[in-house]
């Protein structure tokens, strides 16, 4: 009996030490940065874009000599587009790999799952594209480089009401998604305060394929515009099925629409739709054009907003490490919080006292199956 216990404990110790030694050993000449990103799953194109942007920022920084005399090493975990995987991924990055900072995620639901873990471990996290206000409320170690939904909702409400001149809007939102619910709410508030009317609201769940029932119900309310604050896969299917039901009014969305897949899936039906986003590669600004050209050389395609945000999230993290002079978490946190008028490719970025980014917004339209740059709105 005694011997058996002894063997058992030896085996357990051996296993544990094996697991520990499997973890990344921090090299003295490297700074470890963790990234969690949806490289597969329903929003795979988001994760791929932010990952490419971030890789570009890492390579550029390393080629310019690194920071604090060290090279940056990026460790990437896939979230498979699932919130529970996001929590596992950051736990792994923090407790096994011992990264000094975490970057990600695009989806607010996934960032909300990961943020409490970063906060509890006091590891600064910068989300590249989660626009739901709740994300940075999770604690003083959580930051973002994108705009927030109240701002986005307000701009899109103004755009629909003033620029398109439409007064009767209907909303079709994703009931299981924090981003979609938040954006729908902020749009509705702003639109009503402008004097507009929300004539109908319907809901769907991410992963649905059939939207005809909801669209038929919306059509009966006779809206002049339909707001779809969701992600590109569903948005494209929704607009496509709406056109089949002869609903030819403009469709309006947020930055969740910004993916090449939107037009690939929706095709010609996407014409006469508009969405707000952080970045357009058609923006004539020389900083943007320079970035767009380099990105095109590397990956053979134009960067979308998420690539640009991924790039900016990386640069802000590296800039803060440089200013902090150390990688100690509380100093790094203070340095990120002090970011002011940082010139990113998505505009001038200032982190405010709520750890949100103050920055401009871009409105794009789909015309003849192509994205067309409409306007840039300053905060």
């Amino acid at each position: 009996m005694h011997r058996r216990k002894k063997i058992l404990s030896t085996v357990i110790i051996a296993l544990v030490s094996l697991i520990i030694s499997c973890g990344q050993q921090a090299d003295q000449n490297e700074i470890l940065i963790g990234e969690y990103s949806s490289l597969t799953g329903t929003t795979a194109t988001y994760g791929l874009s932010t990952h490419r942007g971030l890789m570009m920022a890492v390579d550029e920084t390393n080629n310019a000599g690194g920071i604090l005399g060290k090279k940056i090493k990026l460790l990437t975990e896939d979230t498979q587009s699932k919130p529970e995987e996001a929590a596992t991924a950051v736990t792994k990055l923090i407790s096994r790999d011992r990264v000094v900072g975490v970057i990600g995620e695009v989806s607010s639901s996934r960032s909300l799952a990961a943020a409490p873990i970063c906060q509890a471990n006091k590891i600064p996290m910068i989300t590249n594209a989660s626009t739901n206000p709740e994300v940075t409320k999770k604690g003083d170690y959580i930051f973002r480089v994108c705009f927030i939904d109240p701002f986005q909702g307000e701009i899109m409400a103004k755009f629909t009401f003033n620029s398109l001149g439409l007064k009767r809007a209907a909303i079709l939102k994703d009931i299981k998604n924090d981003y979609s619910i938040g954006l729908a709410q902020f749009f509705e508030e702003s639109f009503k305060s402008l004097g507009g009317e929300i004539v109908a609201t319907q809901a769907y769940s991410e992963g649905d394929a059939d939207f005809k029932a909801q669209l038929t119900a919306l059509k009966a309310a006779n809206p002049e515009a339909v707001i779809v604050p969701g992600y590109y896969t569903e948005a494209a299917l929704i607009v496509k099925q709406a056109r089949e039901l002869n609903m030819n009014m403009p469709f309006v969305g947020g930055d969740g629409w910004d993916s090449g897949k939107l037009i690939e899936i929706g095709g010609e039906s996407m014409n006469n739709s508009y969405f707000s986003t952080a970045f357009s590669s058609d923006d004539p600004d020389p900083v943007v054009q320079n970035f767009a050209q380099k990105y095109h050389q590397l990956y053979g395609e134009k960067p979308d907003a998420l690539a640009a945000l991924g790039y900016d999230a990386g640069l802000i993290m590296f800039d803060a490490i440089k200013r902090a002079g150390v990688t100690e978490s509380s100093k790094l946190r203070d340095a990120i919080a002090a970011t002011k008028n940082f010139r990113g490719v998505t505009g001038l970025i200032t982190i405010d006292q709520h750890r949100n980014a103050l920055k401009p917004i871009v409105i794009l339209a789909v015309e003849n199956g192509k994205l067309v740059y409409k306007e840039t709105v300053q905060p």
Partner: protein
Amino acid sequence: MNQLLQQIINGISLGSIYALIALGYTMIYGILRFINFAHGDVFMIGAFVGFYSAPHISKLVGGSIIFSGILVMLLAMLICSLLGVTIEKFAYKPLRSRPKLTVLITAIGVSLFLEYGGQLIFGPDPKLFPTIVPSMAVVDTQNLVIGSNSIVAIVTAAILMLILRFIVFNTKMGAAMRAVSYNHQAAALMGININSIISFTFVLGSSLAAAAAILYSSVYPSINPLMGIFPGLKAFIAAVLGGIGNIYGAALGGLIIGLTETFVTGYLSPTYRDAISFGILILILLFKPSGIMGKFEAEKV
């Protein structure tokens, strides 16, 4: 009123697709007395056959849309039939003399194998199903629009169900199927080759699932390796609702579930849609487990 009419059209087009999948569940249950949980994943494979073959086939036959559409569907039906028969030969046949629960659990294993094997081979991200039927409005009035996709789905499903009815009730093979379903041993004593009848049933069921997949993906053109789970479950509910083992019941159950889901989504909230579908399953199992058209069978003791 017009909204009601439109919702009915939406519901029938979804329901006729559920009905096609439900037929597969019901026929296999009728012959082997177990639920083939891998059926929804055979449906998924059908969609991917369409996804990979449609561009080549339309290039091969050129302009004719109807002809290439039929070819894509036939190819998907052929490949899924082979898959169905293979699954039966390797996973279910060796267990035929074992308790039904063993086969049932194996079926869940096959289902998981196809789902996650599919993620490995096809990739987990959703793919855009190519346009096989050009979408245009066939009926187009102020308030009612019936798209070509809905019409093709309803008409094709109806034709396939009529063909199935003919096979089961008017051919020798169908008579043999019904005999095997009635009593395995007696049918075998009458000189019916049980194995070939079971294979034939899998061919019929799987090819209907493949046809349903092509129709489903044409109406809802985003496909992924996990797409079979929910339509599979809904069709299972439809089969139980109609009376499992009963072919007319499966068709009726499919339509009822399709219409119910559409009405719940359109008039209540999509949040309740799945809850109500599964609620129907629970109610029917509690109060009339033989289903709407099924006959009551006393358990032999």
